[in-house]
C-alpha cells in the first residue's frame, strides 16, 4: 500500500502488512545506499499490529521505483550470499573428507608397519 501524493510522486510512505524489523531494517539499509534517496526510514506504528511504514523521499525519481530497486538489490545480495555460502560449505566438507581420509590412511600405514615389525621380531 502506497500513501503518496498524485502531484509529487517522489515522496511516499509504503505500508507493508505482516512484516516486522526483519525485512524493514534490511530494506532500509539498502535504500539508504542509493544516492537518489534523501529520506529512507521505517517505523512500526504499534508492536501488536504486524504493520511497517517505510518512508521514501527521493531527489526527483518516483519513490515507488526507487523502493522497488532497493528490494531488487536486496534480493540479488541474498542470492549472492547463498551462492558464496554454499560454496564455502562444500569446500569445507570436502576438506574435512580429505583430512579424514588422510588420517585413516595414516592409521592403516602405522598398523601395517607395526604388524610387519611383530613378524620380524618373531
Amino acid at each position, binding site marked *: 500500500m*502506497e500513501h503518496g501524493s498524485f502531484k509529487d510522486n517522489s515522496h511516499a510512505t*509504503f505500508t*507493508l502488512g505482516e*512484516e516486522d*524489523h*526483519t*525485512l524493514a*531494517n*534490511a*530494506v*532500509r*539499509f539498502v535504500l*539508504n*545506499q*542509493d*544516492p537518489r534517496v534523501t529520506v529512507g526510514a521505517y517505523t512500526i506504528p504499534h508492536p501488536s499490529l504486524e504493520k511497517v511504514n517505510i518512508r521514501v523521499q527521493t531527489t526527483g525519481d518516483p519513490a*515507488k521505483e526507487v*523502493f*522497488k530497486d532497493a*528490494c*531488487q*538489490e*536486496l*534480493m*540479488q*545480495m*541474498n*542470492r*549472492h*550470499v*547463498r551462492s*558464496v*555460502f*554454499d*560454496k*564455502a*560449505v562444500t*569446500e*569445507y*566438507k570436502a576438506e*574435512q573428507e580429505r583430512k579424514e581420509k588422510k588420517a585413516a590412511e595414516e592409521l592403516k600405514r602405522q598398523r601395517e608397519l607395526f604388524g610387519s615389525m611383530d613378524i620380524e621380531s618373531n
Partner: protein
Amino acid sequence: MESVEEEEEEVRRIVTDEEKLEAKNFNIFDLPDVPKGLPPHLELQRTRVVCEVGAPLHATGTIYSGAYISSGVDNSVNLENFSEDFKVDVISLTETDMVFDMIGIPQGIANAFRRILLAELPSMAIEKVFVVNNTSIIQDEVLAHRLGLIPIVADPRLFEYLSENDQPNERNTIVFKLHVKCPKGDPRRKVLSSELKWLPNGSELLKESAGGSTTNPKTHTSFSRSQDSFPEFADNPIMPSFEDILIAKLGPGQEIELEAHAVKGIGKTHAKWSPVATAWYRMFPEVILLKEFEGKHAEELVKVCPRKVFDIEEMGQGRKRATVARPRDCSLCRECLREGDETIEGEANSKGKAEAKSEGKAEAKSEGKAEAKGKRDWVDQVALRRVKNHFIFTIESTGSQPPDVLFTEAVKILEDKCERVISELS
C-alpha cells in the same frame, strides 16, 4: 599595447586541446602526495566499534552512501562492491552445530538472517493431542505442552501447512502414539520420548460418527497412503530428535494413552516450531596493544585475561613482551582495561632494587601511593574494538535439519519476502 596583445596570443596558443581534456579529467586525488582514503580516525569511526570501559562508541554505522564524498571515499555498499568483498569462512560444521564467519555483510542483513532462523523457518511439532486415558499426576494440558516442545526429525519441506478447513492427511500431519503403563507393585518409572511411536498409517482413534454403525468408521485423519511408502521415510522413520527427553513419571497403577498429531508451523506462532535451539552472532573482536607491555607487566596482562587472549613472546636477552595471540576468543570482559592492584610486584616504577621493593610495599600501605605498589591503569594501553562488517555466526539446530540447510533456507525466505513486496508494488 601591441606587446601585451602578442603576449595574450602566445598564452592562448599554449593551451592545446589535449591539455583541455586533461584539465577536465583532473582528479586531485591522482596527485602523488595527496593522501588517499579517509584519515585514520575517521576510518576507525567508520569500520570499528570502539569498546571503552563504560560503553561502546560508534556502534551505529554511517550508512549514508555520500557521507565521505568530500574525501573521495565511496561509502556505498552496492551490489558490485558487495559481490567483491563478501566472504564466508566455515570454522566448524557438525550435524547439529555450525560456526562460520561472514565478512563484508551489513549489520541489518545479518540480523535479518538471525531473526528468520529463530522465528520464520518452518518445522514440525506436535500440536493436537487426543488423550484417551491419563491417570498420571501430570495434567493433560501440561502433558500436551511438553509433547509439543519435543523436537521431531522430519524435513518440513516435505510437508504442507494444515489450515483450519483442511483435512489432516499424510501430506500435512505426522501421527504419534504414546501408551505406557506402570503396573501395580513396580517402582516409579520414567516416560521418555523414545516411547513415542510413529504411526505411518495415520490415526487409530475412531471418531464418533453421527450415522449408524454400518458406515465406515472414520479416524481423526484421512491418510490415503501410508507415510512409510514415501521414499524419504522408507529408511529413516520419523522420530523425536533425542530419545532421552523425559515426558512424565508414572507411579504404580498409573497409565497414559494418547495420540499426538504433529503439524508444520513457524516460530512466530509458538517457539516449539523454531528449528534452531538458538542462533546468534557476534562481531569479530580486535585487541590492540597501544603501548609495549614488557616484563612483569606482560606477565600480569597474560594472567589477567580469563580467555587467554594474550601470549608472552621472548625477545632475546631475557626480555619478554606481550602479544595478542587469540583475539577471536576475546569476550569483551574488559578485565584488561579495569583498574586494579597489580598482583605481581611492579618493577617498572620502583628503583629495581630488592630493598626498595619491600620498603616500597610498606610505604604504599601507609601512604597509599599508586606507584610503589603498582596500581594497574591500562585504559590507554589496550584498545578493544569490534570490526563492524565481520560477524561470527553460530547456529545450533535441534536436529530436524542440518544447520547449513537451515541457513540457506533462511536466506531464501528473505528473498521471498523481497519478491512479495516487489510483486505487490508492481
